[in-house]
């Protein structure tokens, strides 16, 4: 009991500590692909550190929502990280607090507050970006739902720990067509939800073209640091769900020993770095889509997971 709470807290700590590192590695790799040197992989830590030591400027016109939002955006991914398999393949203390759907709702809550805060300040770019994020968000929502339906249909559960076991016992289940298609759909979902390239350019600094970034334009000082850190953690958490539940449910601690749990940390980082290489390849070889083509991108993701559901439903499987 106490052990499980301890592991859960380790899990939370891992998410908090290593999420900026993952972002730093992505940025560095992307620059390297473009034949530049790029910033150090520790740059996100320095940014966050610097922002914490800066003064915060809050508009007089804004309400409590604007001050409250950074904390919501920061804590929501922390909550989700308690629910999902990050290090262990057996459920930990808080795992049954909510299923994957619940985790999705918690993340959506953070998105909702970020949108409100962007509208709150009256900066013209904020609401524009926020409404675009909402557009992408409501296009992504049905895909999210169908992915969960398919997954829970196959596994008979929406608790990620149980789902993860279903894919690999026996190993042949891994090659189930519905599984592969759900993986594809979830990949497209991650790209859209985190504002990665075919949907949004995360390194763009042109306010008119921003989708995801412009929500946080008005934040400064501690608020900006929390938003940034929260964004990193959200990405880390989604990667954990994608890798540990769907793609590579191996390399997790299966016993209660502390060393095995600690060994799982480098393994999950290794898996993430492998995935990041793929992500950077996708990002470097595609162009950003025009705003109204995003519907088609999400439509493709939707149809991919509907196809997965159909194949499962029509018993086209091994």
């Amino acid at each position, binding site marked *: 009991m106490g052990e499980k709470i301890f592991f859960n807290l380790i899990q939370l700590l891992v998410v908090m500590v290593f999420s900026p590192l993952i972002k730093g590695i992505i940025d560095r790799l992307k620059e390297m692909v473009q034949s530049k040197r790029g910033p150090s992989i520790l740059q996100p830590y320095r940014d966050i550190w610097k922002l914490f030591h800066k003064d915060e400027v809050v508009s007089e016109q804004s309400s409590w929502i604007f001050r409250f939002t950074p904390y919501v955006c920061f804590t929501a991914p922390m909550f989700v990280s308690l629910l999902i398999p990050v290090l262990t393949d057996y459920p930990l203390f808080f795992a049954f607090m909510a299923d994957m759907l619940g985790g999705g709702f918690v993340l959506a809550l953070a998105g909702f507050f970020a949108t409100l805060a962007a509208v709150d300040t009256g900066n013209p770019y904020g609401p524009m970006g926020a409404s675009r994020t909402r557009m992408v968000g409501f296009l992504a929502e049905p895909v999210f739902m169908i992915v969960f339906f398919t997954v829970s249909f196959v596994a008979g559960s929406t608790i990620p720990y149980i789902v993860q076991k279903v894919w690999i016992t026996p190993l042949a289940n891994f090659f189930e*067509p519905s599984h592969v*298609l759900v993986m*594809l759909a979830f990949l497209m979902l991650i790209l859209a939800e985190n504002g990665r390239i075919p949907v949004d350019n995360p390194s763009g600094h042109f306010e008119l073209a921003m989708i995801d970034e412009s929500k946080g334009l008005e934040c400064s000082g501690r608020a900006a640091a929390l938003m940034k850190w929260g964004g990193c953690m959200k990405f880390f958490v989604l990667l954990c769900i994608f890798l540990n539940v769907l793609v590579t449910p191996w390399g997790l601690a299966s016993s209660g020993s502390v060393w095995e749990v600690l060994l799982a940390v480098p393994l999950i980082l290794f898996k993430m770095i492998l995935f990041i290489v793929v992500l950077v390849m996708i990002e470097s070889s595609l162009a950003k889509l025009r705003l109204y083509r995003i519907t088609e991108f999400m439509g*493709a993701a939707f*149809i991919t997971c*509907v196809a997965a559901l159909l194949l499962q439903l029509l018993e*086209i499987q*091994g």
Partner: protein
Amino acid sequence: MTQFNALMGGLFILTAFGIVGLRQILGSLRLFVAQSLLLAASAFILGATHASVHLFVVAGIVLVVKAFFIPWLLYRVLSHELHAKREIEQALDVTTSLLLAAGLTVIAYFLVNPLLIAASDPFIRINLPVGMAGVLLGAYAVAVRREALPQLLGILTMENGAFFAGISIASDLPLLTELAAAFDVLIIAVVVGLLTRRIHKQVGTTLVGVMARLKEE
């Protein structure tokens, strides 16, 4: 083995969706190559399980003709078309046509369902509905696309779908039939490709969707 075959089937349907919905001409052509590779893989798996030389021959023919020769030919004949006009016009918008395509997949399954009850072989249960869906999706692509080359790819998808279903039902097709089918497809591709080129020279576009009326000169 059935697992891998099912995976091929799933990805096959996905590529057929792509041929219905993808906007880039070049991308559609690449998808067609992928689709043919999946077909060849499925034929290979079936051949290995049934120990049938004929299916290996089918896999070989598909690999050479459909995954290599036809795309290369179309690429050569229509390379200007591929690079100059990159986006395909559609009669319906992409999302709607993809949703209809998903509906067609379900219809395909219920069309072949009576046959599946009689079939005991697990491969038939996979290949027949997937192949049928391929045929319907190909026909749908022909109907909904307005460019000549994607329409041709639609026809070829129909053909691929028919093959996908066929290899599971008749595991020892006479070699002559296989050769004839492969050759037929090749001729279709050449004729349509040359015709498209000709249309492009005369009219300046390959938007066959707008060429609804005859014009006297």
